[in-house]
């Protein structure tokens, strides 16, 4: 899905848990998520910690969209 969107020139950042799968299907900008059932959250954390986690990963994704890359790249997140 992402690939077809990127083909039209719109940069796409894929946020997913299994990064190796994203790589094999040809994603270019990637940020790893927490898990499959809760990609951008964690029921074990406090509300504050979860918010920090979610904003941190989304911020990494936004920065990835503004980053020039030559090849598939995984962008790390602080939390």
């Amino acid at each position, binding site marked *: *899905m992402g690939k077809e969107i990127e083909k039209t020139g719109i*940069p796409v950042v894929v946020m997913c848990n299994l990064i190796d799968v994203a790589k094999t299907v040809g994603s270019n900008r990637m940020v790893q*998520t927490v898990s499959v*059932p*809760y*990609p951008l959250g964690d029921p074990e954390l406090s509300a504050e910690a979860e918010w920090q986690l*979610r904003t941190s990963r989304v911020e990494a994704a936004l920065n990835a969209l503004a980053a*020039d890359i030559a090849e598939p790249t995984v962008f790390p997140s602080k939390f």
Partner: protein
Amino acid sequence: MLKAIHYINQFFGQVGGEDAADAKPIFHDNLVGCSMMLNQMVKPDIEVTNTIVCGDNYITNHTDEALKEIFAWLDTKKFDIFFAGPAFMAGRYGVGCGIMCKAVAERYHVPVITSMNEENPGVEEYKSVCCIFKGGRKATFMKDDVTAMAAFAKKIARGEELLPAAQEGYFPRGIRAEIPQPDGRIAADRVIDMLLKKLKGEPFQTELIIPKMEKIPPAPALKDLAHATIALVSSSGVVPVDNPDRIQSASAQKWGKYDISKLDNLPEGVFKTIHAGFDPAAMCHIPDRGIPVDAMRYFEKQGKIGKLYDYFYVTVGTGTTQAFAAKFGREIAAELNAAKVDAVVLTAT
């Protein structure tokens, strides 16, 4: 008689469904679930001695720990062949089988055999390092898929000649073995035949297949994030609670778009996930865990991005064929381009 060990996931290992996907490895001194069928089929050349059961989340998210535990146990066992699956179209299960087969082959140097449907992401990732038989889409194909795995293992056990991947029925590993042409015709004759067929516009088959995976060059970076319009796209299955477009919970054949222009987050009870590929409780409780409208709105207010696009686009990513996923991508891209959206954050599960 050769000995074999069989790896299966929590579901087929009778631990439980999604709720048990975090289960740590369980080592059985007997056979559990479909291991019994496999054992029946490989007799009398091979005996399946043990079943290893592990949760799909555990093996894919805690791979190092899982392998450490499994190796500690496997080190005490004697076995000649390793089986995993069949995994059908179950994505995490397929990746789990691939992880196991790769690791076992590297450490114990024994044949590793599994089975997956061609749409399983585990195929692309692991087909070069293990024999992945071409399997059915779902568990109703259990007998067929186990039969294929067992038949190949028996050939190995009997020392029979192993044929190229396409003839044995597994995904080619990208290994080229030099063999004399079975019909004895020399290369010059064969290539001229091919050329003549090509000139006549007839179908012909190359002897040197070069697999290709379509790569898209990275789109140029956004120059000005602070003025960019960014859209959320997702395969997480988060939709309005009544699922107005009736998007399928698995093997989706459509996508939906939903207005978020007046929302700062996706409230529980207004949105939920209909995704059938994982335990939906956590995402139904806080749908922003799947589609982070709240975080995107926050960054919009902060001025980090220009605008969060007024709609999000969503489908369900489990069991969905690549052909449908590509179609959805093209349709959504057309809308995004028409709306002058600059970039996409795509959340996948």
